[in-house]
């Protein structure tokens, strides 16, 4: 495979703090590479280095065979575009936001008009061009930010947690756009994520990053098959638990994850196992529900955080579970810190890592 970018012994320091240490990595043309790691692991810094926004303290970056220096970084930046985790839009219309990069490149107005409309169509925001960008919903704003990068048709697209804090509908649209862009435009994409499902489903390869160091770069199958313990220890992913599994007479398995919490899974697991439950697949209720779900636990809400259109709850049932619900549900149920609740999820929702 052709190399698009190559990082050799890259180190980035901010004052006394080393954020990236001896990072050596290759990015192949046309691939989707995910950077998987916990908060503060250096993912965003690495993306900014690849976007030629940050000059490394040490090491070398090659892009399309050319060494990136301070002199040529401005020219190199025209070959890449980054979408930040925190959605940043200019205080103007959706059209002007998406057109910004094209205007900076002095593209003719007719071409700008055409390309902006195409980009808006890709992210399913046709008809939004005249609207004020800052008055859109969180998910729509993130799609505008993505369109603004896509319209430039750069060789390298860098996405920092592109679906973090988005509701499932908008997250789904963005994931679809990522895959389509890579497939049809052959755009190389490097994305930072801590979403386990996303990390398994979307990228061709995954780079595990922790405390500024890349510990492994491999395919999703290799990463998830071999390094389950490392992944769990990263705490990179919500609701990832290590436990001891035994197979039941019913053909399911019970995984003891400690503190009296035993999870039932439809998978036949035995011995040491690492399991994961998608926060969006867990139901919260004030009373115990009678349902077909095999996993019901009583606990207390120990943390509440606003994630744009949704709310993330941490429910301590002995072990902390992260649950994601809509803001509307949160308000209707009048949930609060310390409230006693039940969490319910199916054995089918328990995935093995």
């Amino acid at each position, binding site marked *: 495979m052709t190399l698009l970018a190559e990082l050799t012994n890259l180190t980035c320091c901010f004052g006394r703090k080393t954020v990236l240490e001896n990072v050596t990595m290759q990015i192949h043309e046309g691939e989707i590479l995910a950077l998987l790691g916990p908060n503060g692991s250096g993912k965003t810094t690495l993306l*900014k280095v690849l976007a030629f*926004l940050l000059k490394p303290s040490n090491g070398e970056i090659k892009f399309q065979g050319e060494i990136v220096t301070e002199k040529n970084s401005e020219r190199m*930046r025209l070959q*890449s575009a*980054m979408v930040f985790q925190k959605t*940043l839009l*200019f205080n103007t219309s959706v059209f002007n936001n998406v057109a910004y990069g094209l205007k900076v490149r002095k593209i003719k107005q007719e071409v700008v008009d055409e390309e902006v409309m195409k980009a808006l169509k890709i992210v399913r925001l046709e008809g939004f061009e005249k609207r004020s960008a800052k008055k859109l919903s969180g998910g729509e704003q993130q799609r505008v930010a993505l369109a*603004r990068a896509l319209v*430039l048709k750069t060789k390298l697209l860098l996405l920092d947690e592109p679906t973090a804090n988005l509701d499932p509908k908008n997250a789904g649209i963005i994931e679809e756009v990522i895959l389509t862009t890579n497939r049809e435009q052959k755009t190389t994409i490097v994305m930072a994520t801590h979403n386990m499902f996303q990390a398994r489903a979307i990228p061709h390869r995954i780079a595990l990053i922790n405390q500024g160091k890349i510990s492994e770069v491999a395919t999703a199958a290799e990463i998830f098959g071999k390094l389950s313990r490392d992944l769990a220890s990263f705490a990179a992913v919500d609701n990832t638990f290590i436990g001891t599994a035994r197979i039941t007479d019913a053909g399911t398995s019970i995984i003891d994850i400690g503190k009296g919490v035993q999870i039932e899974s439809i998978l036949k697991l035995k011995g040491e196992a690492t399991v994961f439950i998608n926060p969006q697949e867990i139901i919260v209720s004030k009373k115990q529900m009678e349902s077909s779900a095999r996993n019901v636990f009583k606990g207390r809400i120990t943390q509440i955080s606003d994630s744009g259109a949704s709310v993330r709850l941490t429910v301590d049932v002995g072990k902390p579970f992260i649950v994601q619900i809509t803001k509307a549900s949160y308000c209707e149920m009048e949930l609060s810190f310390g409230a006693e609740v039940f969490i319910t999820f199916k054995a089918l929702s328990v995935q093995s890592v």
Partner: protein
Amino acid sequence: MNDIWEGIVRAFQLIFSGDPTVYGIVFRSLFFSGVAAILAVLWATPIAMLLGLRDFRGKSIIKGLFTTLIGLPTVALGLFLWLILSKVGPLGFLGLLYTPGAIILGEALLVTPLIVSIATNAIEAVDPEMMNLAKTLGASESQASIAVLKEAFNGIIFSDVAGFNRAIAELGVALMVGGNLAGFTDVLTTATSSFTARGDFSTAIALSIILLVIVFSINSIIIIARNPRMLFTLGRMPQ
């Protein structure tokens, strides 16, 4: 009380009759303070950009200095400039003292710290990642700086208007270096002061009313220009 009331009535008569003395003073005020504000904006904006966009050693000291200078007493600055521009001063050879040029220079210096401080805050209020955003979309350093300035536009305009308001409403500098010479360097504030001292309340009141109207009108125009829809919702209850 009767004298005051009579003064007010005659003031409106002077205003609506287009009295040449009054309107000559108004024109000079608008011109001197307008030019002073423009001059201040020209050198204050790059300073604000530097302070707002860059990190460097001593930045907080410089910012603190500009903030402190906002409170500089106008008469103190006026005295300082008088000493500089007088015949025995280092810039006496310019012959600026008691000319419109001295007032313009003085007022420009007076309002610079105000414009710098407000504009810097406006630029700093823009998300720090905005520069990086513009750059990742292909902007050069200067193009990215312009993008940030555009985001800070409202705050920068506010700083410029605040500068003009300060300039047109100040007394100390105009009096000390302008001398309040009738028909030449008398402006709204200095003339109001001298007419009052002479007992000509009606002219003094007329000048004060006009000063208030100018300040109010300019601010209203700026506010409406930023949000024209406000005109249609002025009478409505907030929702």
